[in-house]
């Protein structure tokens, strides 16, 4: 199963590499996405072994399975949308076929690197896979060949590479502190209590700053709004919905090691600082945004901040809320980025002021944009409301009143910004008459699916998912 899910994206990429006609590439990409989602679902269902699986250098535990499932969902939604988006895009800017080949090859490689990142317990391989996600997606960011996309791709590669460098140094320092030549996470965590505290502290700071760069923690976030807004929308959905979560996954692994070696105080304080700072910065930029794709990118930074705060609380309740928040944000953000792609295809602009009356021009996309946007702000009845509420209550229950109040205030501020722009875009009538209706079925279907998946965790957390979340929290280690 592990081998199949790791090789599937590679096979799909190889099929696209021989430059088959477009329907074959679309078929291979959809087969890959479906395969990943099906295998991930099977692994979620595989509770008989406590979700533990291992094959060679691939291995999975409950935490990997949680992240694998959300990577699978986001990949599936975005792959469906990709097909429609590229068809729509080709109609508009007489597309060059070689760029479409490259798109589908890199798309499948990109999904493969994300699957690999969450399916390994080897910290070296984890680093290699996460760096490879950047390398595979750099040209995807640059797909619309313009000076802005080039700038975004350049910043993306250069700045996240600096982050990776620090993360690798942190990884090596953990190994050095353990005094044994192994990169196995389980062994390193077991050795953590015997590590020199000074070395382990330095290692955790480096890993947090390094992987935090990739996750978009402020002040290392500067590349994120550029890359996530300039990429084609389905790519933005993968970047914001799945890729940055692989970095969160890495941070969770390093937090466990630090927790085992240093106790909860040190990692929690750092995570809380980065989390609140990211939230504050994102809330401010959300209020003054002019571009709706950048708005969604800053909202990702906001949610990465919430997740970091949840992680810093670290109790069983907070960790459950954090894991759900990761999933809810991933699906909601992917859905919204896909919707923003539909708006972009229709209006041909990403400036907020030039878009009006989405609900009249595209009733379905407009409704999803509104509902998904409200979900992202943390309003009921959607998933993010419940998971954010869980994190608040965990903060108050742990008597961290200041952190809880700061969290509530900053999320409210971000909500104000998001609602202001949503309101302006969705209602009213378009400035110029536009042909009414959706672009095509491929760009419409994933929105409905995505919105459904955002709504369900706002109403009910199924028992099997709760069990998986509890097991994943157990893997991470409770404060």
């Amino acid at each position, binding site marked *: 199963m592990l081998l199949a899910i790791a090789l599937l994206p590679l096979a799909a990429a190889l099929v696209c590499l021989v430059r088959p006609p477009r329907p074959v590439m679309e078929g291979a990409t959809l087969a890959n996405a479906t395969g990943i989602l099906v295998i991930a679902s099977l692994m979620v269902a595989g509770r008989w072994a406590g979700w533990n699986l291992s094959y060679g250098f691939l291995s999975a535990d409950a935490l990997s399975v949680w992240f694998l499932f959300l990577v699978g969902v986001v990949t599936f939604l975005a792959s469906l949308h990709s097909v429609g988006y590229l068809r729509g895009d080709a109609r508009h800017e007489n597309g060059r076929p070689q760029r479409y080949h490259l798109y589908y090859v890199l798309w499948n490689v990109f999904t493969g690197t994300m699957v690999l990142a969450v399916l390994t317990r080897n910290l*070296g391989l984890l680093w*290699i896979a996460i760096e490879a996600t950047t*390398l595979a997606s750099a040209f995807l960011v640059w797909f619309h060949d313009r000076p802005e996309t080039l700038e975004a791709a*350049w910043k993306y590669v250069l700045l996240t590479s600096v982050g990776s460098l620090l993360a690798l140094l942190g990884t090596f320092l953990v190994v050095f502190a353990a005094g044994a030549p192994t990169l196995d996470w389980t062994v390193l965590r077991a050795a953590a209590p015997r590590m020199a505290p000074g070395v382990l502290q330095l290692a955790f700071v480096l890993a947090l700053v390094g992987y935090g760069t990739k996750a978009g923690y402020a002040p290392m976030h500067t590349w994120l709004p550029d890359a996530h807004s300039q990429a084609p929308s389905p790519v933005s959905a993968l970047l914001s919905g799945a890729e940055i979560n692989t970095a969160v996954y890495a941070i969770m692994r390093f937090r466990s090691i630090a927790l085992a070696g240093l106790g909860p105080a040190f990692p929690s304080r750092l995570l809380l600082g980065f989390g609140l700072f990211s939230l504050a910065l994102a809330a401010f930029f959300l209020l003054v945004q002019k571009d709706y794709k950048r708005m969604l990118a800053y909202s990702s930074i906001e949610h990465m901040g919430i997740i970091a705060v949840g992680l810093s609380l670290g109790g069983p309740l907070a960790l459950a809320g954090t894991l759900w928040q990761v999933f809810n944000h991933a699906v909601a953000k992917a859905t919204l980025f896909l919707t923003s792609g539909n708006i972009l295809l229709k209006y041909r602009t990403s400036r907020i002021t030039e878009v009006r009356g989405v609900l009249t021009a595209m009733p379905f996309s407009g409704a999803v944009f509104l509902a998904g946007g409200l979900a992202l702000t943390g309003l009921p009845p959607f998933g993010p409301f419940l998971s954010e509420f869980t994190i608040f209550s965990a903060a108050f229950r742990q008597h961290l009143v200041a952190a809880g109040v700061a969290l509530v205030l900053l999320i409210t501020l971000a909500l104000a910004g998001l609602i202001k722009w949503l309101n302006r875009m969705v209602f009213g009538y378009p400035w110029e008459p536009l042909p009414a209706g959706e672009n095509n079925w491929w760009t419409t279907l994933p929105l409905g699916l995505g919105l459904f998946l955002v709504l369900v965790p706002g109403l009910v957390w199924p028992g099997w998912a709760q069990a998986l979340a509890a097991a994943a929290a157990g893997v991470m280690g409770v404060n």
Partner: protein
Amino acid sequence: MFHSLVAGRLVDSLATLFLISTFASVVARQMMGCVYAYATQSLLLTAVALTLAVVTGAPHLYLLAGLAFFVKALFIPWLLKRTIHDSVHEKRELSFYFGMPASLITSGILVVVAWAATSNLPNLGAAALAALNAGVGTILIGLWTMISRREAVPQVVGLLCAENGLMMAALATVADLPLITEIGILLDLVAGVLIMGILVRHMVAVGRTTDTAKFQRLRG
């Protein structure tokens, strides 16, 4: 005993030369100067790996030295040179955000910072400590170069120097890691340089420059 003493001295001297080559990349005024400084630095890294391989007799260190030589001292400099030659006027003076004296003073301070940060690490011999100092110092200086230089290729060289520094630090502390990890890291490195090279060429095609300050439309 004598054997390891000589090796220790050798590693010590090589690490010092390694740090000097980092300073060379800081002061290089022309595009190719940066690349040659990087190639020299990679050669010195190879030499340290080779010395350690001879002392410990570990086969994977020989392989590592070979890989470092072919990939870092030959292939990547060749790739950079080709990128520069195809696209940029190679003998042109480079532009800085910070002047040369300021950059040199900062680099000197960074070496002291690196020394202060590493000198109290436990379980390290004198030679390993020297290599670690040189490595961490090079990482910091490399990152500083990325900030202080305005142009794309020297920024890439800054990143590559920092990566060399990281490998030097790794040799000093965790030399017995599985080779497969090192190969993966090298593959990522090569792919990264290839991608950055292509982006640089397109910067020239689009904006007739590799000055990244000219590519700052995205704000806020």
